[in-house]
């Protein structure tokens, strides 16, 4: 076979033409390379040597004799599944490293340090859809909230808002760190799940920003942080099992937070508080939806999962039995926030609203537990064991 590089040098991309011509030739085939680049002979000899091909310089045109090295490099390569959403394999090989799903993976290279490598352990059928939804609905904290909206609150009401924001921020830190930790442990073969978690982390980063900005809007002194609340969050951070963490954080914790954020949106004493809670609520719905979708998938793959979820709730309850749970200041601040004023009648109304909130949280948890497959009496029992800290 013969090719002509015209005046293109091997050092300027000419090797691509040679490579392409050799690609489908059998090993041992001869390829005469014509061209006008003065260095062609010298460079072709070097290139052939580097690539493991032979070179014959005896004729008028230098001739490459195809060697076996290129074929040898890829002889044991395997495809890492298929690129599309249906292309995942039940088990992802750590030897694929960071190769894209569907890539032809050369053998060798360092194995990936990932332990979440089984579809049954991480997957959710809705992952792709939830990621796309999340990516399309990202909002700009600077413009999505009317930070300069006029309002004036009595100092006790403002203090209650600051306390609630202080509480929300520490909960958002947990909700940001937990998925971030799982991303680092996950095989990118299940990229849709990684993408969902990454969007979740970005969501929480914005929640941290808007809650912090609202807290600092009128006040330079933040609220208190109770040891019991932090102990409750620590048990979430300590949970290393992906499904159990999704259950405790997304389904029970963020599930309860849907009601809490809805409560704040409804009872907010000022427009900024209402808007920041409303924006966070939108994102948290998606986080809960992913947790539910994952657990349904995982429970289908492993019928013993429900038993483990139950044990996780009980274990967490036992671990937190001696702690205070929700800080009294946070509880009181929710009452005051909903009261809007410092009168007996307003406080009664705030108190009743918080009672209704707790009832709604409890019912929401029970509803989700039943959706996951728990019998309703067990759902009642498990919901009652959920942390008093809400998250």
């Amino acid at each position, binding site marked *: 076979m013969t090719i002509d590089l015209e005046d293109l040098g091997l050092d300027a991309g000419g090797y691509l033409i040679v490579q392409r011509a050799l690609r489908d030739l059998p090993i041992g085939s001869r390829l005469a390379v014509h061209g006008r680049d003065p260095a062609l002979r010298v460079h072709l000899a070097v*290139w052939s*040597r580097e690539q493991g091909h032979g070179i014959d310089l005896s004729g008028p045109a230098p001739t490459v004799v195809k060697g076996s090295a290129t074929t040898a490099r890829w002889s044991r390569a395997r495809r890492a599944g298929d690129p599309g959403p249906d292309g995942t394999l039940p088990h992802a090989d750590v030897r694929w490293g960071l190769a894209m799903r569907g890539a032809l993976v050369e053998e060798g290279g360092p194995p990936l340090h990932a332990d979440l490598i089984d579809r049954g352990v991480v997957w959710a059928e809705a992952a792709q859809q939830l990621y796309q939804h999340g990516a399309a609905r990202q909002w700009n904290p600077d413009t999505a909230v009317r930070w300069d909206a006029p309002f004036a609150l009595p100092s006790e009401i403002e203090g209650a808002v600051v306390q609630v924001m202080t509480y929300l921020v520490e909960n958002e830190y947990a909700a940001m760190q937990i998925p971030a930790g799982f991303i680092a442990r996950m095989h990118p073969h299940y990229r849709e799940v990684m993408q969902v978690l990454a969007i979740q982390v970005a969501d929480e980063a914005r929640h941290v920003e808007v809650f912090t900005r609202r807290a600092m809007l009128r006040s330079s002194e933040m609220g208190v942080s109770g040891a019991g609340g932090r102990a409750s969050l620590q048990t979430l951070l300590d949970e290393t099992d992906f499904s159990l963490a999704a259950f405790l954080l997304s389904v029970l914790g963020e599930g309860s937070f849907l009601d809490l954020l809805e409560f704040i949106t409804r009872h907010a004493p000022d427009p900024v508080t209402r808007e920041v809670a409303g924006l966070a609520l939108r994102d948290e719905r998606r986080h809960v939806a992913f947790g539910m979708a994952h657990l349904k998938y995982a429970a289908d793959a492993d019928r013993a999962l429900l038993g483990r979820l139950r044990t996780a709730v009980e274990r967490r309850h036992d671990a937190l039995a001696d702690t205070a749970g929700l800080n009294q200041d946070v509880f009181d601040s929710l009452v005051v926030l909903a009261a809007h004023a410092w009168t007996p009648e307003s406080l009664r109304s705030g108190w009743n609203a918080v009672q209704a909130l707790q009832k709604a949280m409890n019912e929401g948890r029970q509803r989700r537990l039943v959706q996951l497959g728990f019998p309703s009496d067990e759902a009642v029992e498990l919901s009652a064991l959920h942390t008093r800290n809400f998250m």
Partner: protein
Amino acid sequence: MTLLMGAVAYDPKVVTIWEGFRRFLVDHGLPFDFILYSHYERQAEDLVAGRIDAAWNSPLAWVRARRLAGAAGARLEALVMRDTDRDLRSVIVVRGGSGVESLSGLDGATVGVGAVDSPQATLLPLSLLRNHGLAAGTNLTIRRFDVGVGLHGDHVGGERDAARALIAGEVDAACMIDASHLLFAREGLFTASSTRIIAETEPYDHCNMTTGPSADPVLAARFRELLLGMSYEDAELRSLLDLEGLKTWRPGRTSGYQALESAVDEARFYGEDGALLADDYRP
């Protein structure tokens, strides 16, 4: 009994390569170890003296070891070499617009070469020039770029400095191995038509794995067999073979060193007995 091999640490990757090869060889039942030298001269002397059993030799180290062994009545064997050690050429390069078309155009010129002990960028090209009637001190000025002296040109720095001097107009021609010409073009040091090759040496061979008088013949044969059996299909070996710059080991041959033997004699670099003659060579 262990087969002890010497290699020159011209680059940190040498440790990675030989640690990896050692693991492979030991896993395949060959008691093998290696020691690293800072330059080739001591390695060649130790090989012939039997302090090491094998040496991963540069072509110049082969020439010296062969001469030392001849003087001492010791026997050496070129056991294996890389596929990429066969039939290399050195080139003499001028600037594209210089008007110099052939070696005769270099009469009275300044020529940039690599390190004093580089076969490919100094000894062999200077021999080519000499055979065309061009010699240092008479009708040629040599500008030497001594980088990594003692490493027998394994360090590309001298060639690169000579190439830079050519582009900068500080020398009229530069000498380098063929692969470096392509490398400097890929790196952008040479741009299209900025240089022209006016002469090439005849093909010559580069490194070989030499066994010395102390090598146990059975171990040496097993060493040869295991190296020749290394497959580029093996992913673990492939990364090491890539680092060492080969696809496959080939049987050793000594037919490709004649031009270097002559160049060494012409330059009075080593004596017939392997003695170091070059005054300005300080490895």
